[in-house]
Every structure is written in C-alpha cells, then in structure tokens.
C-alpha cells in the first residue's frame, strides 16, 4: 500500500516535470509568482549569460635536447546581465588531461592553482595572472624558449571538480575577458606530431 502511494507520487511528479518541460513559458509564469527578487536588469532565473573564447590554441614547439617551451593565450569572454555576477570554470572534456597524439602524450603538470609550478619537459598547463598562487605576471606569448620559472597548474579532468578561473559579483553586460595562458614544454624524447586536448569553459550566473 505504502509502495503504491509512493509510486503514484513519483508518477504525478514526473507528469508535472514533463508538462513543465513542454510548456516552459507556463513554468516561468509560475516562477513569476514566487519571483520576489528583481535583481537589477534581470530576475534570478531569466538572466542571460554567454561564454566564448578565441578558439584553438596552437603551441608549436621545435624541441631541443633540453625542455623547449611555448606559451600562448586564450581570451575567454563572458557576458551577462546578472547583477550578481558569474562564475567561470574549466576542465578537460575527457577523463584524461594529457595532450594526446595516438599512443604518445604530454602530461598535464602536477601544479595546482594554490601551488602552481614551473613546467618541465613534456608537460603542459595553464595560468591566469593574478589568480590564486600564480603571481601577478604579466605573462607574454613566447615560442621555443628555454623552460622558465613561470608557474602553471594542471587542467582537471572531466571527472574532477572544475577549476574556477573567475568569480565576479557585478554584471558584465559588455563582456568581460579572462586571459588564460597555456604553456607546453617538450624535449627530443617526445615523438613529433600533433598533440591535442579539448577544454570546456563553463559560465554560470551567481
């Protein structure tokens, strides 16, 4: 008897959810009745937010016998009318964070945002000037230079908690840019080829 009652509850809830998905406008209208807060330009669940970046980052390296490094930037732009700001995070699209080329790979560095470290041969990572333990910078684009003391952090896999890149508390109506620097180092032990990985940026309204 008890089980039957619970089953009915589940069925009814399922029907309501289905109706809500079919008629979102109705759902919004219903929300409006509870939407006490009008936070500036938008109500809490109607705030618009978009995220984009400058696209593929190419880290071309002509390795030498010791670590040779290349650093390039990706500009991530978040636009939102939410007066509470947004949270931008990233992680890898795959369950590995290595740059892959068939059976060969470039491992992500073991550094973290709190304790980033300098890249060594056949590792890669990211940094954001001024964030957490990265230091002020400024980082500059460079190609085929010797390994430097500039510190980087590893990219979390899809199974790990995303790394927060930016957290704001005000609206970014005209778009706010976060410069994410990617670096990779290689030596001649690494087989030649194209190593790739896909990064997912996620932006949510606070």
């Amino acid at each position, binding site marked *: 008897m008890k089980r039957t009652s619970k089953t009915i509850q589940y069925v009814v*809830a399922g029907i*309501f*959810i289905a109706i*809500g*998905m079919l008629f*979102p406008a109705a*759902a*919004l209208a*219903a*929300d409006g*009745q*509870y939407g006490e807060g009008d936070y500036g330009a938008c109500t809490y*669940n109607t705030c618009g*937010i*978009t*995220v*984009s*970046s*400058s*696209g*593929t*980052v*190419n*880290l*071309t*390296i*002509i*390795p030498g016998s010791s670590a040779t490094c*290349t650093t390039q930037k*990706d500009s*991530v732009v978040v636009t939102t009318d939410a007066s509470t700001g947004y949270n931008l995070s990233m992680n890898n*699209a795959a369950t590995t964070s290595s*740059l892959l*080329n068939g059976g060969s790979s*470039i491992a992500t560095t073991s550094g973290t945002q709190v304790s980033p470290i300098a890249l060594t041969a056949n590792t*890669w990572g990211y940094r954001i000037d001024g964030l957490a333990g990265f230091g002020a910078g400024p980082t500059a684009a460079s190609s085929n230079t010797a390994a430097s003391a500039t510190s980087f952090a590893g990219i979390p896999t899809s199974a790990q908690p995303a790394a927060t890149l930016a957290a704001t508390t005000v609206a970014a109506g005209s778009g706010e840019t976060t410069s994410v620097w*990617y670096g*990779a180092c*290689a030596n001649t032990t*690494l*087989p*030649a*080829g*194209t*190593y*790739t*990985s*896909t*990064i*997912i*940026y*996620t*932006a*949510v*309204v606070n």
Partner: protein
Amino acid sequence: MLQYSFAALLAFFSTPVFATTIQSNICGQVAAPVFSTQNSTTAASTTVLEGTTTADVSVAIKNNTQQVATITSDDSGDFSLQVSLAAGTNSFTATGTNDCSSASSVSPVVITREAPTVTPEPETPIKAPSSQSTANTPSDNEITEADTEEVTTSETTVVAPQTIDKPQAVALRIILPPGVRSTTVGSGADARTTVRTSEKTIYLKGVSAPLAAITISNNDVKVASLTAASDGSFGVSIPLSGGTNILAIEASYGGITTTQILTYIRSEETNPVFIIGTIAATALVVAAGATIAIRNRLQSKQTRP
C-alpha cells in the same frame, strides 16, 4: 516546489559552455640534406640525384638557384630523383622542410655537363643505284627503301605548323621495372594498373613530353613535382605507405594535362596465395565486359619485319 524544479531544469539546460582545442605541434628539427651523389662530369642530359635528410619531409631541389623539383623523403629519410642537366655547371642544392622548420644542404653536388663531341663524318660519294643492286634481294648490310626513310640526313627538317582544333593530350607513359607483378584492367586512358610490392619506396620512371611539368600525388597528397628532361624522361623516388597507395601522375605542358593512375598495394610480404585470389576476382570483371591484361613484364620487344 515544482516551480523551483523547473527553474533548476532551465538553469541546467541553459548553462553556457564553450569548448576550445589546445593543440601542440611537436616538430622534429629537419636535418640538412646530404647528397650521396658525387660531383662529376658527364655528357648525358640527365642524372639521378640521391641523398638523405629527415624522414617524411618535403625536399626542394634547386639547380643554380632555380627550383627544379619538390619530392618527399621516405621513412628512412632517403630521396632520389632524375634531374635534367643544362650545358655547363649544374650546382644542385636541397632544402628539407616540415611544418615548422627547414634546413638546406651544406654542400651542393656539382654535375658538369660537357657538350657532346661532334666527329665530322667523312664525305661519302653518292652513287646512283645500279639496276643490278635493285634487282637483288637486299642483304643485312644493304640499305633498303624502308630503312632510307629513317636515315637522318644533315639537312634541317622543317615541319609545317599544324592547325589544332582541340587540345591534344600530353604524352605520358609510366615504365615499370622488369619483374614487377602488376594487373592492368581496361585499356588506353581508362587503364588501371595495380602493382603489389613489399618495398617502402619505389623509383617511378616514365616518359612524357620534353620539359613537361610532372606532379605526383599519393592518395591525394602531393609528394613530388619535377620537370621532365629534354628527352621527356623523368624519375623520382616515391615513399609508399602500408596498404593502398593510389598514385596520380600528372603531366602538364602548354596548358594541357594528362593524368595516369597507378595503384601500389604495399604489404610487408608479397603472398602468392593473395595474388591468385586477385586473378580470380578479376575474372568476374571479365564477365562484365571489361578488358583484363595480366602481365608478368610490361616491357615488350619490338621486332622489325
């Protein structure tokens, strides 16, 4: 409660994400090409250049600063091609290039082409044919009427320009070395020849129009471009990948291009049983009306009547 669930669902489906690709191109440093061909002097109009550089890189060949060919080194780094020789000094250099670096040969190979020595022929008095000689059956040492048509005289032959209504094809013939096992389906321009080999690199030879531009692609990737010699001959080493290599050989001259397709199937070991299977398969094509020619040797002998 439910309304908050809707809001959560909407928020979930409307969370913006953006994917970007991080790509690291690790390039091998190209080794400066080194010629194994020695400096020499010759009277020939062509020679074969051979050398070594990094594996699978594009190699541009220059003769006295003028680029004459671009080929691809094989997976051992070797390259070779036939080049034309101009009269005098021919100083060949090579530059290997990959996606992000290049290196030029340190030492050129110098081939000096000497003008052929012309020995004046002794003047032979022309005798009127006697009635006796024409009545006799010609022996091997006598000149027949048919032979006289092929004798080159010292006079310059002027050929009147012909009116060409529509473009003609550029001559193009691929010469397979003796002993190559090949299968040819079709004839003429539609002929498709398949060669089975275990070699990682083949030396492709052919004959086209003199100074025709020759371009060779392997599975739609250009692997060589060169110029045929003044006698129309050309030759270049072509690296083969495992499996099917569809070579498209293009000969262009005067805005006209002729293309021949030559398929190489590379396996580590040629298996006789596999060859038998191929012959059985082509028998089905015969039933459909196609022309099949299975040749052990492509070279044929011409016999004079």
